[in-house]
């Protein structure tokens, strides 16, 4: 579904990605891990269109995304749940969710999608009139996830959902992601710093370090590979 070849990105005057190639097949769950500054978020932004690629090609369903704007890519069915959640703080929980299904293809099934999401995150149902800015970090993460799901996407991009959250909430989040994965036929690309939780969920994984892919492989192979640790802590 998603094929990236030879991607190079310069972001903020720095070389963030060099020669990155990866693939996500339909229905797969792919995880991308790596230390801070490796370029994981930049990669997701390049896919969803907020950052332009200097070299390389990103193809979605065979179609070169080229210079397509972010809003157009979202309309195609790519949902990006950004790093740091980025919920609309001045809007209510409900309004955030409704906005999730802004794209034309999703609007028709809004009510249905809403029911499913609220069932997945009962906490959001309880807080639906509250301003999103007043939710806790974990609640905001669930809202961001729910908002992403409201778009009824074909490809879900998750950027470090565990960032800044306590261990218990993180567990909950990962459980929910697993559940989403099992109950729907979504293709998921997850970017994470927490290696094991992220790798345990996936079918295949990649390890990114200073803008390059240094390792890739199936789930079990990566989980047993000590080289993953080296990418984070050297040695």
């Amino acid at each position, binding site marked *: 579904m998603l094929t990236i070849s030879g991607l190079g990105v310069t972001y*903020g*005057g*720095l*070389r*963030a990605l060099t020669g990155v190639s990866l693939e996500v097949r339909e229905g797969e769950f792919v995880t991308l891990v790596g*230390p*801070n*500054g*490796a370029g994981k978020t930049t990669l997701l932004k390049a896919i969803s269109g907020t950052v332009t690629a200097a070299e390389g090609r990103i193809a979605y369903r065979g179609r070169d995304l080229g210079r397509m704007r972010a809003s157009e890519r979202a309309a195609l069915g790519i949902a990006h749940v950004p790093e740091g959640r980025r919920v609309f703080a001045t809007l209510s929980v409900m309004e955030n969710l409704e906005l999730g299904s802004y794209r034309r293809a999703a609007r028709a099934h809004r009510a249905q999608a809403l029911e499913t999401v609220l069932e997945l995150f009962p906490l959001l149902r309880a807080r639906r009139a509250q301003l999103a800015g007043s939710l*806790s*970090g974990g609640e905001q993460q669930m809202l961001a996830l729910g908002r992403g799901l409201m778009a009824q996407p074909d490809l879900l991009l998750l950027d*470090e959902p565990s*960032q*800044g959250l306590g*261990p218990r909430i993180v567990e909950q989040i990962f459980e929910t992601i697993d559940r989403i994965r099992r109950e729907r036929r979504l293709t998921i690309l997850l970017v994470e*710093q*927490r*290696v*094991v*939780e992220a790798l*345990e969920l996936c079918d295949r994984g990649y390890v990114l370090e*200073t803008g390059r892919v240094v390792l890739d492989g199936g789930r079990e192979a990566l*989980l047993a590979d*000590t080289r*993953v*640790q080296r990418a*984070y*802590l*050297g*040695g």
Partner: protein
Amino acid sequence: MAARAQGWLAIAGVVAAGVVLTLVVQERYHHRVLTLVFLWAAMGLAWNIISGYAGQISFGHQVFFGIGAYVTVLLVVKTGLTPWIGMGLAVAVAVLAAVLIGLPTFRLGGIYFGLATLAYPLIFRIVMDWLGYQEVAIPMIRERPGWFMQFTEPRSFDLLALGVLAATLVLSRLIETSRLGYRLRAVKENEQAAEAMGVDAFRAKMAAYALSAVPAAVVGAVYIHAILFIVTPDAVFGLLVISQTLVVALVGGIGTLWGPLIGAAVMVPVSEVLDSTVGDRLPGIQGVVYGAALMLIMIGAPDGLYWRVHQLIRSRAARGAAASRPAIVAAGGDAAVASAPAGGVLLEVRDVSKAFIGLQALSDVGFDVHEREILGVIGPNGAGKTTLFNVLNGFLVPDRGEVRLRGERVTGLRPSALCRRGLGRTFQVVRTFPRLSVLENVMVGAFVHARAVGRARAVAVAALAQVGLEDRADDVPGGLTTLELRLMELARCLATSPRLVLLDEPLAGLSSDGVDVMIAMIRRVRGRGVTVVIIEHTMQALLRLADRLIVLDQGRRLAEGAPAEVTRNPAVIEAYLGKRWLARMGKPAC
């Protein structure tokens, strides 16, 4: 040196041309236009000092113009004081007003500053109305009219206006080539970086504002005597004055001497001609022309005609010189300075905590930094490393805790004060002063301790030599590679003669060769007696470089010690990769 003399020569040339025009022009009406060109050019230059050099766009500069007019005329009317002296008093009042307005207003950031400057002329208008000065006419003085600035010969007004222009040109040039000028431009280009390089931005802006009030007040006083003869609140505090000022300065070119000259020479005659030919049938044609000029300039050449032309000429020249530069070779001595850093404690951090809305960024962080050591600060994403630097550097005030530099309490001081005490910093994303040359960028740092421009230049040249960038001195930062930019930032920091430098991810985005060069450079810096604290993610590189490491996780200090032990510390591994990884791997691999 030659360039500087050139500037003064050019000014002399302009003044000479002005004199020639004054003598050559015949008709009374043309003299009036000439006078207006000189006066508005001077007004534009005055505005340029605060809005061009310092980058604080003021929409209320006519306040000083109006003060100049009112004070001078009221003194003539009420006390019979000659305007030649009255003007001096008006200037004093204007400077006082600048200080009073600037004090609260420069603390406002962003758009609020511009909005506040809009309010003052309106207030003055109301005050003048209320005081009953809706119309103050200059009384005709028949004996010794020259003594009262009432000339019969129009050439005299031209020369007077030219004199004002010449004086303002000299003032502008003096500022441009002085320490203040460099600092103002640094503040304009990147205020935070300027602060970190020891520039007290507030003081610099205040100085510029007070200086900019002087020519504006003088122009106001002369304008009334030469052109208007009657002072009304609307005429001197009104929108048309600031519009004309903006047009002259913006169309010509902001931030340069030549801009307002060009702008006035082009726009004033155009609008005057239009006004006199079709002004009766089309009242307001001036306003339309000015408005259209402002819009076109903002869309087409936002910095003004001067810079547009400058850019075109420069890009043609640069195309030739874009040859590849020799890569900077990592000068020998990679292993040389592995000497024991064991110096006394230079920086003490105690119980520092900082919270933002919904996030406790730092909790009770404490550690010591020893003289001449290289201390690495690491930690997973969101650990609070940059927040820590911002606290150490003065950009943030901690909620609790304190920081001591050589025993002196420095918590809460602004970045420029810390820089003067020897604490330097580089940024994660290099913050350059884009329109200054590399050398001038570094000079801003040198000005912390050097008073004279010559001395600062010498210090800057030496700093550039230290990092190997001497032959890039006259280039603009835009043309540098990432490595060269980081080296430039380092040089700029070194020019402030620091005792301790905070380096924020200096290796990010560099190729492996670049990393080698940077590492060698940092070692050399330490070798010269400077202590280094460095945030880095490129772990392999940091392990080679650091003497000690401190690990932060979720705002707390997690571990401290030699690199080899820290990276094997289970708590640290868990912080980076998670508890489950640790469990899976059993004992951490070597």
